[in-house]
């Protein structure tokens, strides 16, 4: 629906805000543009309604070049919501919402009924709020009016520039949910700029991650989480997001760090009592410097108790083991072939830093699963 072809933006003074963008926004989708400040996300959005005219390339809406429209006409057909809300302080709520229909020359009674309809749509009571002034409303209510104003003449496209970032977390949450349901109901094409990855993952049908004026990846949230194509994307999505994907989750995040260990010189009797006391089945052996030496199983201990003096005689090599730079995926693959159902994790000096067992793996993955489930229920 909205197509960018080799679009770039160079500001006066030579700063290149946006570099040769090529992408298309589908009809009816909610596309999130996200990136750190200075990444060009707002500029990219504001090129669509020519608030920030592009320097070169071509932007088309339904195949028609945006520069071929009268600029005021173009903007009247694109809803616009900004972070600072920008309601006219000298207009009542009613008049604020009526701005675009008025500019388009609608009949007075059509405007009246449209305003009422919109106030109800965004959850404000026309009886109470229509004749009030913006300063009499809370920030959240004002942004509801801001959204109603953008929807007023029923445009197909709505641009939203960090619309909820100035609101308190509770109101933000509420408006996010309401916008999602509005979007489902009205099927508008929405371009949504944010710097908040949680908001992006929650709202976006697709997300474009931007940096230094470039789109690094434009994909569905699921794809971004599972297959980030770029180191920065991975970093930007953040550690807590990456954990949903075992490929990217460091093994150090799922390992247990308190481990029962023993020195190799322990007598089998003492080792047995330790195992019973701590209710474990295998004992990890390390030397005085903390280096991993091997494993002694309770089974072997009981069987050979009378024949050995110290447990190092029945110790077997602790294999397989993993370096602390490995991923959770490596652990999942190895756990099946690990004879004791556990994988010691060592650092580069072969010192023991943790232990992955079936139990720790299961609890790490199931907590992820529970989190995802909760998020699904939100929607």
């Amino acid at each position: 629906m909205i197509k960018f072809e080799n679009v770039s933006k160079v500001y006066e003074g030579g700063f290149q805000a946006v570099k040769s963008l090529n992408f298309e926004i589908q009809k009816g989708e909610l596309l999130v543009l996200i990136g750190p400040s200075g990444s060009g996300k707002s500029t990219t959005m504001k090129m669509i309604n020519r608030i920030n005219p592009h320097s070169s390339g071509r932007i088309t809406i339904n195949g028609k070049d945006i520069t071929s429209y009268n600029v005021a006409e173009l903007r009247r057909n694109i809803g616009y919501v900004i972070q600072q809300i920008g309601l006219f302080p000298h207009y009542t709520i009613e008049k604020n919402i009526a701005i675009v229909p008025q500019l388009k020359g609608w009949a007075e009674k059509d405007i009246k009924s449209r305003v009422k309809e919109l106030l109800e749509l965004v959850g404000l009571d026309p009886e109470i709020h229509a004749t009030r002034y913006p300063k009499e409303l809370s920030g959240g209510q004002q942004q509801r009016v801001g959204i109603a104003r953008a929807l007023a003449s029923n445009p197909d496209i709505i641009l939203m520039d960090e619309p909820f970032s100035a609101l308190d977390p509770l109101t933000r949450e509420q408006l996010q949910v309401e916008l999602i349901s509005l979007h489902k109901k009205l099927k508008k094409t929405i371009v949504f700029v944010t710097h908040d990855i949680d908001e992006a993952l929650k709202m976006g049908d697709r997300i474009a991650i931007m940096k230094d004026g470039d789109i690094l990846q434009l994909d569905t949230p699921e794809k971004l989480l599972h297959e980030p194509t770029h180191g920065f994307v991975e970093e930007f999505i953040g550690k807590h997001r990456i954990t949903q994907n075992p490929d990217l989750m460091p093994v150090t995040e799922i390992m247990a760090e308190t481990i029962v260990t023993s020195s190799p010189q322990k007598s089998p009797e003492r080792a047995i009592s330790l195992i019973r006391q701590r209710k474990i089945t295998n004992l990890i052996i390390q030397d005085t410097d903390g280096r991993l030496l091997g494993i002694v199983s309770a089974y072997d201990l009981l069987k050979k108790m009378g024949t050995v003096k110290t447990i190092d005689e029945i110790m077997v090599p602790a294999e397989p083991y993993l370096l602390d730079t490995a991923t959770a995926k490596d652990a999942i693959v190895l756990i099946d072939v690990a004879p004791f159902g556990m994988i010691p994790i060592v650092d580069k000096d072969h010192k023991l830093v943790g232990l992955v067992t079936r139990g720790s793996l299961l609890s790490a993955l199931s907590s992820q699963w529970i989190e995802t489930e909760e998020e699904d229920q939100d929607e």
Partner: protein
Amino acid sequence: MNNMNIWQQLVEQTQLRWGEVLEATFVHIQLVFFSMIIATVLAVTLGIVVTRVPWLKTIVLGGTGVLQTIPSLALLGFMIPIFGIGVYTAIAALFLYSLLPIMRNTYTGIKDVDQATIEAARGLGMTNMQILFKVELPLAIPVIMAGIRTAAVINVGNATLAAFIGAGGLGDFIFLGITRGIDGLILLGAIPATLLAIVIETFFSAVERWTTPKGLRK
């Protein structure tokens, strides 16, 4: 006559010159009124132009600032070769004095309108003219009115000097009083001029309140 105290002088002079005082007050009001009308039209226009053409700002605001520093009497003197002696010269000088406060306030009033409001207005598809008349000016009106009020009050005071160049007004009595050494006569000019200033101040304060958009009132 000089044995009388100042109040007796005032009473006597008032009885003697009552008709003249009314006439002079009327002339005084005229001087202020016409200079203010011209100044307001021009200064508001210039103020708006300056907000659109940034490089003009230093020239225009600087230029009128310089005008403001010329002593009022000297300015009246400069005007004589151009407009001759009389009312026109006085109006021209008063006009020049009123430019700066009005223009500066117009400029600030418009510049101080919240940029978010302007951006929203542009984003909604308002033309520059619509933004000026529907958003910027209505929101700047209280500040512009304050400028007009300041200019008008200064103007009432400066207009007394117009008597020096034969333009009449309440200044006539003040100078007559000074030259003749009759203090009561000075008061006869000074008191109505002061009252006039107070009335104008009150009037414009009311206008200022009245023109402030309802959504902005405290």
